[in-house]
C-alpha cells in the first residue's frame, strides 16, 4: 500500500481525536455541589473517622509523634517514583484551611484537586471513594479543629510517563472501582466492617497484591503483597490463611500483639496507633468482615 500524505494526515487526526476523547472521558471528576447535603457534621465522630482512615499515618511530619499536626513531608518509595505527603493542616496558605467542604470531599472521594488535577493514587482515593458521605462530613469537621502548620509541600519525584497527571484518569477508570469487593448479603456488623476495611481503613492498599500498572488485584483481595522498598511482605488476611479468631483480631488491633504474642512491625505499628482509638464495636465489625473474606 502506498502511504499518501492524506492517509498520514487522517491517521494523525484520528489518533488526536482518540486521545482527546480518552482524556475527556477520564477527566478529573468532581462531586456535585449538593453531595454533602443531608449530612450533619459532628467533629467528635470525625475523630474516629480520622483514626480509621489513618490520615495522621501519612500526613503527620516524619519523626514526630504528634498525630494532629498534619505538616506532611513523609516520603513514599514506589515503583513509579517517590511521593511526598502534602500539608493538610488548617493553614490557609500551606494547608487546606482555605478549601470548601466540597473541595476536601472531592479530593478524598474522587482524587481530584481544587485546581482540577488528578491526584496520584498513593493517596488512597480508590478506597476512600466508597466511603459513606456522613463519615466524610464528620471527618472534614474534625480536620477543621486541628492546628495550622506552615510547612511548604515538597514536589513528588516521579519519572515519565507517570509525571503526566492526565494519564491518571485512565488509571482511575481501570482501578478505582466504585464497587465493594466483598458483596452479597452482609449483616449490619459485617457491613460496618466492610466500610472500615475496604473504604476508610484502606487495608487493601497494602495487603492486596498489585498488577504491573499498580492496580489492586481484586481476585486476590487481602492476600498479602510485597512491600515497596523493602524485602518484606504484608501478611495474607484471608480467613482461611490467617486462621485468627475474632477475639484475636480485636486484641491485635488494640495492642499490636499477635495470637503468638509477637508484635506488629513496620508500617503496621502506626496502623495500630490508629485502630486502638476505635471503639470495640468497630474492631469487632472489622473482625466480622475479615472472617468472611475469601469465604464468600
Amino acid at each position: 500500500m502506498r502511504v499518501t500524505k492524506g492517509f498520514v494526515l487522517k491517521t494523525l487526526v484520528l489518533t488526536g481525536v482518540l486521545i482527546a476523547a480518552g482524556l475527556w472521558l477520564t477527566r478529573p471528576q468532581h462531586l456535585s455541589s449538593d453531595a454533602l447535603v443531608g449530612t450533619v457534621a459532628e467533629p467528635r465522630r470525625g475523630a474516629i473517622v480520622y483514626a480509621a482512615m489513618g490520615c495522621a499515618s501519612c500526613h503527620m511530619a516524619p519523626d514526630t509523634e504528634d498525630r494532629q499536626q498534619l505538616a506532611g513531608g513523609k516520603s513514599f518509595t514506589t515503583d513509579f517514583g517517590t511521593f511526598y505527603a502534602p500539608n493538610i493542616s488548617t493553614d490557609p496558605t500551606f494547608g487546606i484551611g482555605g478549601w470548601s467542604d466540597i473541595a476536601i470531599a472531592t479530593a478524598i472521594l474522587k482524587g481530584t484537586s481544587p485546581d482540577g488535577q488528578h491526584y496520584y493514587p498513593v493517596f488512597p482515593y480508590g478506597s476512600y471513594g466508597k466511603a459513606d458521605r456522613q463519615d466524610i462530613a464528620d471527618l472534614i469537621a474534625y480536620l477543621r479543629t486541628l492546628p495550622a502548620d506552615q510547612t511548604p509541600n515538597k514536589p513528588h519525584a516521579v519519572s515519565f510517563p507517570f509525571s503526566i497527571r492526565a494519564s491518571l484518569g485512565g488509571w482511575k477508570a481501570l482501578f478505582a472501582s466504585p464497587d465493594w469487593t466483598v458483596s452479597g448479603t452482609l449483616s449490619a456488623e459485617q457491613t460496618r466492617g466492610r466500610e472500615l476495611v475496604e473504604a476508610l481503613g484502606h487495608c487493601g492498599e497494602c495487603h492486596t497484591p498489585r498488577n504491573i500498572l499498580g492496580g489492586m488485584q481484586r481476585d486476590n483481595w487481602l492476600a498479602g503483597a510485597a512491600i515497596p522498598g523493602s524485602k518484606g511482605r504484608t501478611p495474607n488476611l484471608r480467613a482461611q490463611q490467617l486462621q485468627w479468631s475474632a477475639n484475636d483480631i480485636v486484641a491485635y488491633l488494640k495492642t499490636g500483639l499477635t495470637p503468638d504474642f509477637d508484635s506488629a512491625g513496620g508500617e503496621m505499628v502506626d496502623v495500630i496507633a490508629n485502630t486502638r482509638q476505635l471503639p470495640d464495636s468497630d474492631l469487632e465489625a472489622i473482625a466480622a468482615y475479615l472472617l468472611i473474606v475469601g469465604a464468600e
Partner: protein
Amino acid sequence: MQKALIVCFTVAAVSIGALAGADGHISDKQIETAVKARKAHMQLYSFHLATLGGMAKEEIPYDADTAAAAADSIAALSGISQAGYWLPGSDNASIEDTRALPAIWEDGSDVGAKAGAFVEAALLMQTAAPTGLAALQGAMGPLGTSCGGCHQNYRQSNN
C-alpha cells in the same frame, strides 16, 4: 529507668572494646551468640506476654498471683543489660538469621528511647496486673504497642 536504658544502649555501642579481642575484632562466634541471646530474650517476653494477653482476652481466667508473676518477669527482663546483644555487624545486611535492621546502629537511631518507653510500659503493667482484670486490660495496650516502638523501624518485616 529510661535514662538507665539509654545509657545501656549507648554502652552497647561503646563497650565493644571490652567485648572485642585485643585487636578490636568481633568474631563470628561472638556475633552468633549475641544474636541467640537477644532472640531468647524476646522469646521470654513473648512467653510471659502470653499469660497476660490470655487473661486480657479472657481466654484464661484472671488470677492476680499468676498475672503478677508474669508482669514481674517482664519488668525484670526489661531491666537486664542488653549491652552485649547488639554488636555492630549483627544486622541483617551483614549476617543471615536476623531481622535486626542496620538502622539500629545508624546516626539518628532512637532505639534507646524506644526501648525506654517499653521499660516504662512494663513497669506500668507490673503495677496494674495484680490489681484486677480491668487494670491489666488497660495496661495491655501501652505494653503491646511499645513493643512496636522498636519493631516499626528497626526490625525487618517478614517475607
